[in-house]
C-alpha cells in the first residue's frame, strides 16, 4: 500500500502525513485523559519519550520485531502512567497538571543522564519501520476504539467524572479505578505514538520531549475542541500542517504560529469543534426532529 501512496504523493508529503498520524494517536490519548475525563496533564510528552526510548532500545539492542517493540513501548508508558497516576490522581485540577509537568521534566532529565539512551548525544540508528500504511492502520484502529469507548459504560463514567466528580461517586462510579484506567489507556497511546515517532525519525533526543511538546499536544486537543474526536483530528491536522504551510515565511514561522494560537482561542475559546461528537453528527437529523440540541453541553 505504501507504493500506492507514493504514486500520488512525494516523499515530503508522506513524511508530513505520517507525522500527523503519529501525533494524532498521542493526541487521542491525551484527549481521553484531559478532554473526556477532565484530568489536566502537562506531561504527555514524557510518556511519548518513554514509549519512544523503550521501543527504540528494544529494536536496536535486541532486534525485536517492529510490532512487538511498539507494543512494549506503549505498555511501558502505560505502566508509568499507572505508577504516576496512582498517587497523583487524587490531586485536583491544576495541581494534577503541575505534578505531571514536574514528572515530564524529571523524565527528560533522567533520559539525559542515562547511558543506554545516549544522553545528550541522543539515540541514533533506529530502523525506519513506521510507514504511512502502518500509521494509518493504527490511527483508524485508535479512532474506532475511542468512539466505541466513549459510548460504553466506562466512557460514560469518564464523562460523569469530568462533569461532577462527587455526583459520579454518588452514582457508584469508582473514581480512583476509573481515572487510573483512563490514564493508563491515554499514556499507552502516548507510548505507541512515541514508538512510531522513534521509528520514523530514526533519532531520539531528550530535548525533543520537553514540556513544550506536552503543551503542543494540549494545544492540539483544545484547539480542536476538548472531548470531541473530530475536534482532535481537526485540531491536530491544523496545527501539524500549519508550520509546514507557514514555511514560506521562514524565520517568522513560529511567531505567526504563536499569534495564531492566541487568535484562534479568542475567536473560538471552546475550540473549532467544541462540543461536537462524531456519533451525534449522524443522529443530528433525528435530534432536530425531536427538538433536542445536537451538540451536548460539554465544556
Amino acid at each position: 500500500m505504501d507504493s500506492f501512496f507514493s504514486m500520488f504523493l512525494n516523499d515530503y508529503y508522506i513524511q508530513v502525513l505520517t507525522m500527523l498520524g503519529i501525533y494524532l494517536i498521542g493526541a487521542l490519548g491525551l484527549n481521553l485523559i484531559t478532554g473526556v475525563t477532565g484530568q489536566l496533564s502537562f506531561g504527555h510528552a514524557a510518556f511519548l519519550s518513554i514509549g519512544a526510548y523503550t521501543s527504540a532500545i528494544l529494536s536496536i539492542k535486541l532486534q525485536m520485531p517492529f510490532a512487538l517493540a511498539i507494543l512494549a513501548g506503549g505498555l511501558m508508558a502505560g505502566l508509568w502512567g499507572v505508577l504516576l497516576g496512582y498517587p497523583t490522581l487524587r490531586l485536583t485540577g491544576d495541581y494534577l497538571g503541575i505534578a505531571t509537568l514536574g514528572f515530564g521534566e524529571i523524565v527528560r532529565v533522567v533520559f539525559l543522564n542515562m547511558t543506554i539512551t545516549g544522553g545528550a548525544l541522543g539515540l541514533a540508528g533506529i530502523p525506519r519501520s513506521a510507514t504511512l500504511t502502518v500509521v494509518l492502520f493504527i490511527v483508524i484502529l485508535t479512532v474506532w476504539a475511542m468512539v466505541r469507548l466513549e459510548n460504553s459504560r466506562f466512557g460514560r463514567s469518564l464523562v460523569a467524572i469530568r462533569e461532577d466528580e462527587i455526583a459520579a461517586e454518588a452514582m457508584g462510579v469508582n473514581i480512583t479505578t476509573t481515572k487510573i484506567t483512563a490514564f493508563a489507556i491515554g499514556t499507552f497511546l502516548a507510548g505507541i505514538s512515541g514508538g512510531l515517532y522513534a521509528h520514523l525519525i530514526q533519532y531520539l533526543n531528550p530535548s525533543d520531549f520537553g514540556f513544550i511538546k506536552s503543551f503542543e499536544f494540549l494545544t492540539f486537543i483544545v484547539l480542536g475542541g476538548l472531548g470531541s474526536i473530530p475536534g482532535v483530528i481537526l485540531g491536530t491536522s491544523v496545527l501539524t500542517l500549519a508550520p509546514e504551510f507557514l514555511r514560506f515565511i521562514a524565520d517568522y514561522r513560529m511567531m505567526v504560529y504563536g499569534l495564531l494560537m492566541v487568535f484562534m482561542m479568542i475567536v473560538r475559546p471552546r475550540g473549532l469543534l467544541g462540543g461536537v461528537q462524531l456519533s451525534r453528527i449522524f443522529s443530528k437529523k433525528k435530534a432536530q426532529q425531536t427538538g433536542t440540541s445536537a451538540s451536548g453541553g460539554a465544556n
Partner: protein
Amino acid sequence: MDASMLSQQILNGITLGATYALIALGYTMVYGIIQLINFAHGEIYMVGAFVGVLMVTVFQQGLLFSLAAAMLACMVMGVTIERIAYRPLRRSTRLAPLISAIGVSIFLQTLMTKIKGPQPVAFPQVINDALYKIGPVEISKVQILILIVASLLMATLHFIVKYVKIGKAMRAASEDYDTAALMGINVNRVISFTFAIGSALAAAGGVLVGLYFNSVSPFMGVSAGLKAFCAAVLGGIGSIPGAMLGGIFLGVAETLGIAGGFDMYKDAIAFTLLIIVLLFRPTGLLGRPIQRKV
C-alpha cells in the same frame, strides 16, 4: 562538606532563591485572582533582562535606572498582554487562556530570537566583583545588591497588598472574584494592576539574574519560569508569603543539591521536591486546603 562551605552554599542558595521568588510572585498573584497559570510570565522576565542590557549598553545608563526602566517596560507589556490575550477569554473554559498564554510565550520567545539572535548576550558588569568576608562566608557585591533589591521590592509589595486601597482590592478579588465585583471593586483594574506588579517584579528578577550569571538569552525564560512556577506551587499558589518562601526554599535546595554532587540532575531537583510536597500537602506549604462543595 564543612560548616563554612555549607553556610556559603546556603547563602548562594538564598541569593538564587530571591530571584526565583521575584518571578514566583507574579505567578502566584495572577493565579490567586483569575486562576490562570500565566505561562508567558517567564518570557516577561526574559524581556526584562534584555531591556536591562539595552539600557546599560546602548543608552549608557546606571544600573538602578536600567532596572527601573526594565520594570516599567515590562509593566506596560504585562498589562498589554492581559488586555489582548487573556481578558477576552475570562469567561471561557479554563484551558483557553492557558493555550493563549502559551501562544504569547512562543511569540515573545521567537520575536526576541529574531531581534537579538539565539546566542546569549553578556550582561555588562557594571558592578565590580569585590568580595566581602562576613564570618565564614564570602559575599559578592552583586549578591548584596540582589538581596537588597529583592527584599526592598518584596517589602514594597507587602506594604501595597496590606495597606494600600488597590492592594486590599487585590486581596478581595482573590478571596472571591464575583463578590468583589458586586461590592463595587473594578475587577478589571485590579487584574491589570496585578499583571503590572507581577511583570515589574519579573523584570527586576531578569535584570538581577542577568547581572549575576553574566548572560542573557532569549531562552532563559523557559527554565527560570518553570522553576519559579514550581516555587509558587511549593509555597502554596495564590499565597504571596508562600511564593517568597517557596522561592528561597527551592534556591537553597538546588544549590545544596549541586554542591552535594547531583549537578547532572540540577533541573530535576525542583520538580522532584514539587511532587513530593504536593503528595503530602496537596496545596503547597502555605496554601489553604481546597474545599469541595456539592
